């Protein structure tokens, strides 16, 4: 059978939307509710096993019981949550892959803001809250009635980094570049002095375009998220930079998805860009006789310093869940991000610890002493930006992606590509 698109798309739909969000009463410090909460997540493989272990630990020490249900990839998880919101049968809590999805659920009135629990008697003191990395709290906040409000809660976070092969850098006589200009020069030196591919990457909005844009002081959208802001001198510089590498210097090999990973692991590539969780995958792909120490550095800096974007996932509580379930979900989320657990999860998964106090936790310190690369992602967090929390970002991102692709393939000039994208994005934001 060829894919019956119509049926595929439509069978998933179920009737009627759920009732509007009910507001749970701010909990008095009562006894922990003896409820079982359902938690939809998208953590598979080894990470799924480690998460399962953490949940078992929680269940054995709490009255609240967590029933974790794996829902597939982030895309599948998103599709299931959207369908569940349609059907009015959401779980108590779920993993969300980033602020745009949170903003969509929020717009659909499907969420109870986490702020409500943070402020409740079960919540966190100002000092406890201040222990969380500020960029992460920003990543989970949306403006609600003009006030910055925590809508979701951080869990597994990573950021984009520069990967390098130290052996190739040494052979070419270049040091780890600290600015974008230094990176461009380093790529040219690698090209002229070695046989290696200087840079291999998948032209993606996140790994290159946005960090470069931010490092110039630019932004993708206006601060109120109502207008495109990337068609600016900073945006043009960001796209021109990639075009220069690809079309003038010819120092990059453009790949698809994670295809850069194997050549990099085989020692054929000097630089790559990916998130901090890529290291285990690269190490796994290395040939046994040609191992090297994977180098990790923050993304190069621009005039406004270094910037990177946050990846990974956050947690949300659904408005349709009964109040005691919501409270149970919060108790679990809070526990999950306590220093002990965030360190354990970080060391098990390669995601970053979420709190400053984690740096001083003995287990994390020991790991950092043994290998300082666990600190690279954490240090880069200072300049981390969340993906713009616009409910329309899902529509905007492919438009930007096409602008980058069109310019990189030489099918469109930088100026035209950005102008076309700007018009489309403004149409989207105007609610078309």
């Amino acid at each position, binding site marked *: 059978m060829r894919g019956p*698109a119509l049926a595929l798309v439509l*069978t998933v739909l179920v009737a009627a939307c759920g009732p509007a969000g009910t507001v749970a009463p701010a909990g008095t410090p009562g006894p922990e509710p003896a409820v079982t909460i359902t938690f939809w997540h998208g953590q598979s493989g080894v990470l799924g096993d480690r998460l399962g272990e953490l949940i078992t630990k929680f269940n054995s020490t709490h009255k609240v019981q967590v029933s974790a249900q794996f829902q597939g990839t982030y895309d599948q998880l998103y599709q299931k949550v959207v369908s569940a919101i349609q059907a009015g049968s959401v779980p108590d809590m779920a993993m969300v892959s980033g602020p745009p999805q949170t903003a969509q659920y929020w717009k659909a009135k499907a969420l109870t803001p986490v702020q409500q629990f943070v402020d409740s008697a079960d919540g966190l003191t100002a000092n406890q809250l201040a222990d969380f990395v500020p960029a992460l709290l920003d990543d989970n906040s949306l403006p609600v009635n003009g006030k910055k409000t925590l809508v979701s809660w951080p869990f597994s976070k990573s950021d984009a980094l520069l990967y390098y092969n130290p052996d190739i850098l040494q052979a070419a006589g270049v040091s780890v570049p600290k600015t974008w200009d230094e990176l461009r020069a380093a790529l040219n030196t690698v090209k002229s002095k070695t046989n290696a591919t200087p840079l291999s990457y998948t032209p993606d909005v996140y790994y290159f375009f946005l960090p470069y844009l931010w490092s110039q002081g630019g932004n993708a959208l206006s601060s109120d998220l109502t207008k495109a802001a990337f068609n600016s001198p900073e945006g043009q510089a960001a796209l021109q930079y990639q075009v220069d590498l690809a079309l003038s210097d010819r120092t990059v090999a453009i790949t698809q998805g994670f295809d850069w990973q194997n050549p990099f692991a085989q020692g054929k590539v000097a630089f790559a860009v990916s998130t901090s969780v890529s290291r285990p995958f690269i190490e796994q792909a290395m040939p046994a006789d040609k191992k090297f120490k994977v180098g990790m550095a923050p993304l190069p800096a621009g005039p406004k310093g270094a910037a990177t974007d946050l990846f990974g996932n956050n947690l949300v509580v659904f408005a349709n869940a009964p109040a005691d379930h919501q409270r149970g979900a919060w108790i679990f989320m809070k526990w999950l991000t306590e220093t002990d657990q965030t360190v354990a999860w970080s060391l098990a998964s390669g995601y970053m610890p979420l709190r400053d106090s984690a740096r001083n936790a003995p287990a994390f310190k020991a790991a950092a002493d043994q290998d300082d690369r666990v600190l690279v992602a954490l240090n880069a967090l200072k300049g981390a930006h969340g993906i713009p929390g616009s409910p329309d970002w*899902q529509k905007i991102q492919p438009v930007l992606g096409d602008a980058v692709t069109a310019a990189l393939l030489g099918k469109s000039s930088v100026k035209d590509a950005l102008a076309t994208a700007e018009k489309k994005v403004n149409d989207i934001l105007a609610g078309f």
Partner: protein
Amino acid sequence: MRKRRREAIEGYLFLAPALLIIGAFHVWPALYAFYMSLFRWEILQEGFVGLRNYGRLLEDGDFLRSLGITAVYVLGTVPLEMAAGLALALLLHQRLRLRGLFRLVYFLPYVTSQVAVALVWGWVFNPSYGVANGLLASVGAAPQRWLLEPNGIVAQNAPPSLALAAIMLVTVWYFVGFHAVVFLSGLTAIPAELTDAARIDGAAGLRLFRYITFPLISPTTYFLLLVATIGAMTSFNLVYVMGGGGQAFGCAGNPLGTTQVAALFVFDRFWCQTQLGYASAAAFALGLVVLAITVANGRLFSRRVVYVG
């Protein structure tokens, strides 16, 4: 009288399972899609917009482009896979040694999961380590970007892009065995006395094919034409997987939308852009286009079909 009624009830009972399934998974969703298409509907139902979503489709360059790409895809695959399928069927109809083995080999792709097939061909066309570029290199030709190439193979900015052409090639490869097997059954059904009589009259080779074989397999040809056209117009799996669905940029129909056939447009607007109402309108419109073309096919070709009684 009573007996007839009982028979009727029995008949409906036998039909019930199929009706239930078709009703629940085809009729009801289609009706519901039409209902959704009358609203602005993102994650939740918003305002009633009447037929405005349909009006928007007519002005949406991306939708019109997806129809154009679909047309190129259908015209580039259906005639080819039918012709190749018929040629294979004629070959396999001979008394060949290992005929059973050949039949199996040509039918094999068709019984393989489309997603698996698409993934394997994705590797073949991978620009960094794919076999396709390896072959080009061995004859000294320049490597291609294959599934990443938005430039057209005929004209730079006209479909099909190299990416779409590669997907079309795989589509033909995938379906040719199916066509061959169905044609083969059509060939087997031709009464031997007709061919024998024609032979006695001196017909052979091409003439035999032109005047006896081809007209007599016309019911099969007609059936395949309908099924293949409908299938190609709603094609999803191969194009979705090979066109880089799920890639970080652009949800479906990479590169630069040049593989975004109509079904992918629907998917993209529905899941990637969460415009549920608009996507439903597109799905419904696509359904109407398919229906119109099927009716046109019937008008054009059904009169030329010869049934042997």
